[in-house]
């Protein structure tokens, strides 16, 4: 897999390179069986569209297509799966949260473009190596593709960025659309500071 022209914006190069132990990583990632338990079957096209329509207006070129949004949800579910006693990406509205970030014109445009591009590069890799669309791949195949992405410069940075916004959806104040009913806070026994915000933040310079 070549890098082609997939530059990583400087703000997203948050990699730490220590010594690798790939074999033990694969084992720990539980790629052998745990992933089959993920409820991919739960995705319905209709619900995905509803999530998308609820996001606010911004630069529309960053609004994900239906299929990009689906790909995002699948990736987020692999990165942060739902469990009975521990919320996953779908429980904290992580995809809708990221769509809102993409429509926030104050967030660096290069970083937003990179997040969107990654969804398309992911699709290119799927077609190149598995000869099918990412959303049509089998769960184990998707797992393998994500794991393969981590070995690659843009892929690791991109997944790290997607994770960062999952963490935001997990632990930011619920007024931002994630962390439904504080489920993220409760899971990690995290006590937010008081006072909590009464409305969303206003950027520097806005009146």
């Amino acid at each position, binding site marked *: 897999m070549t890098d082609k022209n997939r530059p990583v914006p400087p703000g997203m190069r948050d990699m730490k*390179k220590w010594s690798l132990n790939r074999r033990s990583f694969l084992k720990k990632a539980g790629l052998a069986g745990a992933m089959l338990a993920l409820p991919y079957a739960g995705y319905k096209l209709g619900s995905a569209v509803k999530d998308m329509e609820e996001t606010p207006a911004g630069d529309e070129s960053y609004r994900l297509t239906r299929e990009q949004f689906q790909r995002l949800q699948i990736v987020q579910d692999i990165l942060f799966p739902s469990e009975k006693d521990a919320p996953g990406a779908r429980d904290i509205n992580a995809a809708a949260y990221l769509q809102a970030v993409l429509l926030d014109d104050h967030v660096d445009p290069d970083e937003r473009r990179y997040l969107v591009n990654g969804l398309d590069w992911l699709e290119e890799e799927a077609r190149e190596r598995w000869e099918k669309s990412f959303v049509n791949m089998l769960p184990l195949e998707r797992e393998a593709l994500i794991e393969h992405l981590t070995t690659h410069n843009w892929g690791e940075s991109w997944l790290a960025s997607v994770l960062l916004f999952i963490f935001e959806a997990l632990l930011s104040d619920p007024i931002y659309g994630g962390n439904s009913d504080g489920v993220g806070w409760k899971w990690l026994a995290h006590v937010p500071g008081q006072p909590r915000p009464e409305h969303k933040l206003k950027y520097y*310079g806005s009146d």
Partner: protein
Amino acid sequence: MDFDVCIIGSGAGAGPVAYELARAGRQVLVLEKGPWYKTEDFNKDELACCRRSVYTPSLTEERHVIEDEDGEGGWQATSTFDSGNDFWNGNMVGGSSNLMSGYFHRLKPVDFRLLSEFGPIEGANVADWPISYDDLEPYYAKTEKIVGVSGRVVAHPQLEPRSTADFPYPPLQVNEVAHWIDAAARRLGYHAIPTPRAILSRPEDERNSCYYSNYCGSYGCSSGAKSSARVALLDPALKTGKLQIRDRAKVFKLLSDNSGKVTEAHYYDRRGEVQKVSARIFVVACQAIETARLLLASPGPAHAHGLGNNRGQVGKNLIFSGGGSGSGHFYFEDLSDEQIEKIKLPGLFVNRALQDWYTIDDPVFGRAKGGTIDFLWRHANGITRANRQKWQDGQLLYGLPLKRKMERYFKQSRHLRFEVFNDWLPTDDCFVSLDPNERDRWGDPVARFRVGYHPQDLRVGRFLADRAEKLFREMGARDISSGVSGAPPANLQAGGCRFGDDPAHSVLDRDCRMHDAPNLFVTDGSFMPTGGSVPYTFTIYANAFRVAESIREQL
């Protein structure tokens, strides 16, 4: 004359001057670039404080250019817009003193005479101060009382002389881990001292006491306990009726006449229109880099190369703080239930420091200026802490293993940190200039600064970090690690307008009055020839009170 005094900036350097002169009956104007947040506008929203540009300008509109080493013996300039390395601090009324952690250590007598005490250091521009600790001491005491510093004086080998027996406010409450630090220090023969904080431990006038929110550093304070220039000085000064504050007023030039005196400040108002103000005396306190930038951008008939820059000294010998940080973990499986309950209590501070090696006299290391080690919990910010868990041995961690790691981190352990402060030595490779190409949103050249450091900074930092790690081991902490870095911290800026008695080697005289412009004073950290091994804000407040007296006499 529109005003007696016009102050550019509203932070730690500006507040004392506004306070003293307004209370003396003078007409004072403060011009602040940023907006005017009040206490009720602050909250503990992590996205607002720490993940989006709420308290700092967008890099698309205002930026810096940083010259860093290119790895081949030269320097490479990158704008912070391109690197994303935001070098802004809090831009608002009260400045970044609204967001500080408020670790208020005084400089010590040795800091005023590093050249005499330790001799010159090859490659560094060490200089003695033109004043002594005794000259500044009364103003440290004044700052403790008026601005508000809480703590407890304990005798220790490096304690500086004090005119007052103790702090005016009692020490804040501490977490159990502070006692573990005390005990471990005693066993090692170290002297753990309570860290003085610019935070009220009891109410005073309109300010409430600290309520132990657990989210102090980087956040605005919702009780008024944090001793920002805004609540401690500007709000009381406004009551005199003699102070006017104009926010969203970006000063871009100071005009001067043939004699060198400053005559006007020009600023963009919130609509972007140019406004002009005249005053008898001008005070610049924009934080070291932006202060140097403003002076360099203000040439005049008697200041061909910028205000105060006839001898090419403005912007030179910029300094930050040397040092580094480290951490150690306490896993609950290693502790008793009682210990776990006690250290889990949120909000209580650690407030412990070591200054045993403020001056180093070591058989191996030799004799040198050392520094301070401060202890604190890892910041409570959830998103930041979660984000750190995704890396494991250089690999990206995700899925169920990531979630298990997060649970262990958040629910089954606590994380103690230390921060090392030591002198960032002034050198010829750390200075401010005007960038020839990059412009801000008003079309003016942005500040460009080179961030060279001296290897001695890292040697001292490593020496101190090693001793902090030793204390962590004695405490039984696990997975201890530390790093010492030459990277400049954006919130600890000083230098650029050294004060001194010899105009050939300084920009300001000992009263922080510009040598060539007798009605211009600089009262932020720019005046410091050397920085000391403590955060700067306390010294900036104290010195600004001192300079305010000279300004009052001159009016």
